[in-house]
């Protein structure tokens, strides 16, 4: 069995002390396989965003370990983490994904430009086609619709061919049609290019696009589901009381 694309082992993240102590993650162990589309779901305060941040190298665990591939994140300093993010990780956030002063094409190639690396033009074209952005490349974020902005963000995440893409409520701000469109594109990325995607969401319809859903509550992983549909997810959520 290949090493998982990313995983945490006995991960805990604690904020504050004494009375105001918060256990965002409570000894969680979970792994995400390569080439699959995984979703993380749970109510507010379940730790899903925290998990994402810690496993992506944006935040540090209080105890336990986080891994991307074979690399243990706790061993890296800031510079190394930055390099890691540059080379191995892609991000799609809920909002503020793009640099307003750069156009879509430049935003897409941003991580590569920062690294000073060479662009694989053929791949770039493929991704752009996949995301249907060919005619919006020269536009600035202010001139793009919400859905287009998120697709550009997704394109950026894919163009660098990272080992894993983390998405935090990528369709959270979109209307249902744009959300649907975005999710289809992400699905294609996994199916056609073997990209690994780990996504946090609260929306069952969005989670239905994934191969596997992980349910969190109170900083722990409490359930999993393979091959979800919107109905089965809803049912499971009701059963879990979330």
């Amino acid at each position, binding site marked *: 069995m290949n090493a998982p694309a990313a995983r945490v082992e006995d991960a805990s993240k604690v904020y504050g002390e004494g009375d105001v102590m918060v256990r965002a993650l409570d000894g969680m162990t979970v792994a995400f396989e390569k080439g699959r589309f995984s979703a993380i779901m749970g109510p507010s305060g379940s730790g899903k965003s925290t998990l994402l*941040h810690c496993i992506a190298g*944006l*935040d540090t665990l209080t105890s336990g370990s986080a891994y991307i591939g074979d690399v243990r994140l706790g061993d890296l300093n*800031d*510079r190394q983490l*930055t*390099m890691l*993010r*540059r*080379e191995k990780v892609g*991000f799609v*956030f*809920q*909002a*503020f*994904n*793009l*640099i*307003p*002063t*750069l156009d879509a094409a*430049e935003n897409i190639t*941003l*991580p590569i*430009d*920062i*690294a*000073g690396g060479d662009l694989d033009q053929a791949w770039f074209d493929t991704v752009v086609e996949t995301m249907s952005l060919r005619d919006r490349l020269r536009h600035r974020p*202010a001139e793009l619709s919400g859905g287009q902005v998120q697709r550009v963000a997704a394109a*950026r995440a894919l163009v660098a061919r990272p080992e894993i893409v983390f998405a935090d409520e990528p369709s959270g701000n979109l209307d249902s049609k744009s959300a649907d469109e975005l999710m289809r594109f992400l699905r294609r990325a996994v199916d056609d290019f073997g990209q690994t995607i780990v996504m946090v969401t609260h929306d069952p319809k969005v989670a239905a696009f994934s191969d596997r859903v992980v349910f969190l509550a109170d900083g722990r992983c409490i359930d999993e589901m393979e091959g979800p549909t919107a109905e089965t997810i809803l049912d499971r959520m009701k059963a879990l009381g979330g």
Partner: protein
Amino acid sequence: MLRLALKGAVGHKGRLFLMAMAIVLGVAFIAGSYVFTDTMKDSFDVLFEQETSVDLVVRADVEFGYGSGRVPESLVESLEGLPGVAEVLPSVYGFAQPLDKTGKPIGGLGPPNLAYSWSEAEAELTEVVLREGRIPQELGEVAIDAYTASEYGFALGDPIDLLLPSGVRTFFVVGTAGYGDADNLLGATVVLFDVDTAQLVLGFWDEYSQIAIVADEGADPEQVQQAVQGVLPDGVEAVSASEIIAEGREGVEQGVGFFNTLLLAFAGIGIFVGAFLIQNTYRIVVAQRTRELGMLRAVGATGRQITWLVILEALVVALIASAVGVGAGVGLAVGLRALMGLMGMDFPGGSLTVLPRTVIVAMLVGTVVTVLSAILPARKASKIPPVAALRELESTYFKSLRLRAVVGAGIFLLGLALLLFGLYADLGNALLLTGIGAGVIFIGVSTVAPLFARQFGMVVGSPLPRAFGVTGRLSRENAVRKPRRTAATASALMIGVALVTVVATIVASAKASVEGTVRDEVIGEYQVEPTSFGSVFTGGLSTEIASRLRALPEVAVASTYRVGEWRVPGTGEDLDTAYATQAGVRSLIAVDQGADEVVRLGVSSGDFTDLARPGTVMLHEDFAAEEGLGVGDAFPIEFPDGSSEDLEVVAVYGADLFGSDVVISLDAFAGHYDWDRDQMVIIRLAEGVDPEAARPALEAVVADYPNAELNNAEEYVDKVASQLDLVLNVLTGMLAMAIVIALLGIANTLALSIMERKREIGLLRAVGMTRRQVRRMIRWEAVLIAVFGAVIGMLVGVGLGVAVVTAIGAGLQVAVPWFNLAIYLVLAALGGVVASVIPGWRGSRLDVLDAIAYE
């Protein structure tokens, strides 16, 4: 509302800190200037306040100018015999420069080298106090000021060489003196002799400078004055002691007043730059509080209330900062006095004089300027809609840039008009008008600047993307994305750079002119002049130098000239020319017959040799043209001794070397001035003599006169150039304060806009930008802004400088200081780098998670 304002000011104190600093600095300078000069004035007043038993002073009736005139010795007898006269105390004053123990002249760089007679009886009139030893009583004895004694190591009984009109002579130090508790008088050296010695060595022979009279106890002062008046010859007057004291006070006030004006001018510049900074800061702060202010609107505050809130906040900050500034100003004055003391310029001590006027003016200026600067941003704040509380409004306001262009151009033209008016029209306060005109021009340019900010940034910043990839690209974009803000930030730097450029341009022009003039007009190979710029104060050259040089076989002609004052007869009003000095007193020069052999006079009409006739004058062609005078016309002139004459114009000349409109012969000069020292000797060598070979013989003569030096044309030009450079450096140093404020402004703006771009920076870090790259990005943004400000500043500065130089005229050549400008550009870029250090560091340390978290 007030409470909200107070809480607001406290809450935002981080952002408002730099703004407060700018206010403190500007106010401190104003308060400091006033305190310093008031203290100086008061301390001099102390000297004049002493009770003196002298009732009258008899002296030559000199109307104006620097000369002091003389009274005949024989007068003493007549005065002694008068009823009601108890004591008659003659005194002599002049100049004598002490030499240090290695033979170098002491002082002479500005403050005079005073020499006068001092006796027990006469200690009344002067405020000199004996420190050690005793008052000199015979030939060979001298007392010197305490500062010179301690600084140059002269103890009682030591020999000291003094440079006198007649040459160098050795004396022995028998005492040291001070003024009140100051060791010297603002840097002037003082040597004191007894009266007879003073007469002898200062060249007075059978004359005195003045005679003081003490009346009998109980005698009627009026009657005594009448009696004295009766025995006085023409040209001699009797003045009451109180008048003398008043004159002394006035002299001090004038000098101090000038100093005060200079300091205030710099303080004013600091405040002007500060105003830019304050307005910019405030505008940004308001923009960042859009949400908060929107919320206030949402809960019912009106636009006008918001405006008041913002202004009130500014007011609170202004009041506190101004109060701190006044305190800092007092500290500044203390520091300034200590600094002057260190440089050898002492003045009588005492506590600092802090007048109510100082506090009021300083606080008023600080408060008013701040509030005025806050008005525009406050009005902007009132336009924030309530919905801003709920949504993130990325304000891409697109107010008409055309309106800005029109308004800005209008302001610029107004400033230009004021400037030209100040430079060319013959109004009273020319300097003030010129200054205001320049200020308005700055405002106009900064209003229009946003229109160029984008293009400039894109063009000048074009190497950035190539050099630093996307980091450079972002620097450039960030510098130009808010042109108004960029321009406002850069404008503060523009002012400082422009002013420095103006000074540099004027100095460069002066240097070029001197070089050109000397090259074109001087025929003589060598000149002898005082080591420090010979002015009437520092003694000039002994006439022996010229006569000894003439005796050398290598020398064909040694021509000398002197400088004196004149005035238009009448009320002392000035003529229609641009450069009349105070109260219409102008300067003239007196030359000997060899002048046209050492200088190309460029006589355009008439004959120079006619100047040898009595009652003649030669005029400069520009002056003659302005006054409508030509050869054969009568030229009315009043001399300092009060006599008026109509001189016959016998020639009109064009040379600029002497810088004088009016030229008379040395013989004529001797008739009206008793100044028997030369200003300069110009030497022309005999046919076939090699200048280098002749030099040792010339140097041998000059070596006997320690305050004189021999220069050829090149050396002379270099000397002038270095003196001008000194002025440039001092003024630049003083303007440095304005530049520092401007750089602080850049740092401030950067810091604030980084706060605004938190999310963006977080995103960049998330996708892999290192901390170093973030710092680099911010650094180059700062450099672009700084360079923008510097370039505009240089353009405006050169323009202003050229305008001023052209207006001064007087044969001044216009020269642009390219080398200096290049240096300023580099320094500005460096300044930008420095300004970006702290904001860059903080930007790179932003917590990535914090930055990308979404509420």
